[in-house]
């Protein structure tokens, strides 16, 4: 049973990345635009309830790609609005993703402290 979870995470996560790869190769969209598109798509699919179904099915295969980041933003807002009303509009999204963003900020700062760019 657990093995199937891993297979599902691999296949779904891999396929979400393949979509990104096709966008890179077949359109002139820059990576920054594609990633922004992924997050916004995640918010929308999370809002209409489709993405949570994918998360139930594929686990980390759906939460690890950036669409999962968007889905967490949507889920955060949903819960916070239910709890705090209008305040939740402002607090919900970023609180739900705070751990990831704060970790990325701290570790990036550390990386800059202890390492620098290298010629290729």
């Amino acid at each position, binding site marked *: 049973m657990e093995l199937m*979870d891993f297979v599902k995470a*691999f296949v779904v*996560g891999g396929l979400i990345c393949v979509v990104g*790869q096709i966008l890179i190769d077949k359109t002139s969209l820059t990576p920054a635009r*594609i990633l922004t598109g992924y*997050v916004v798509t995640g918010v929308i699919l999370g809002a209409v309830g489709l993405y949570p179904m994918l998360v139930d099915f594929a686990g980390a295969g759906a939460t690890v790609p950036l669409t999962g980041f968007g889905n967490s933003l949507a889920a955060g807002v949903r819960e916070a609005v239910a709890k705090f009303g209008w305040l939740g509009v*402002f607090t919900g999204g970023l609180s739900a993703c705070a751990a990831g963003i704060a970790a990325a900020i701290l570790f990036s*700062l550390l*990386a800059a402290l202890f390492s*620098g760019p290298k010629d290729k």
Partner: protein
Amino acid sequence: MNLTQNDYEKLVKQASPNSKILKNCLGAFLVGGAICTLGQGLITWYYSLGMDKTAAGALTSITLIALAILLTAFHVFDKIAKFAGAGTLVPITGFANSMASPAMEFKAEGFILGVGAKMFSIAGPVIVYGTVASMIYGVILLLLGGM
């Protein structure tokens, strides 16, 4: 030269090699899939340590971000990305790399306007438009709830 821009565009298309899309997609699928499987392994492990869903999910993200930034700092991330393409870009690892790489790069411009400001030069739009999209969703929820 008697050549219109359209004619030239056709010539350029002919002369420019296409991306090796099959090979790129295979790389993206394998590496992207592997990163997600690693995420699945982490979350399963954190559950087994007795964490609840929120904590395990958050710690999984933190772990993957830490790994990606560690690989960036050791100059390995971009080498994997060369093969993986969207496979490392689309998962949360790509987000982490997009913050760590400018932070390291602009160290030469100092820690305030270099590292601090440039850290978000690539990841910024992801946060801005993700947050705003979620806020729009929140307003819609309020309006629906108020009816």
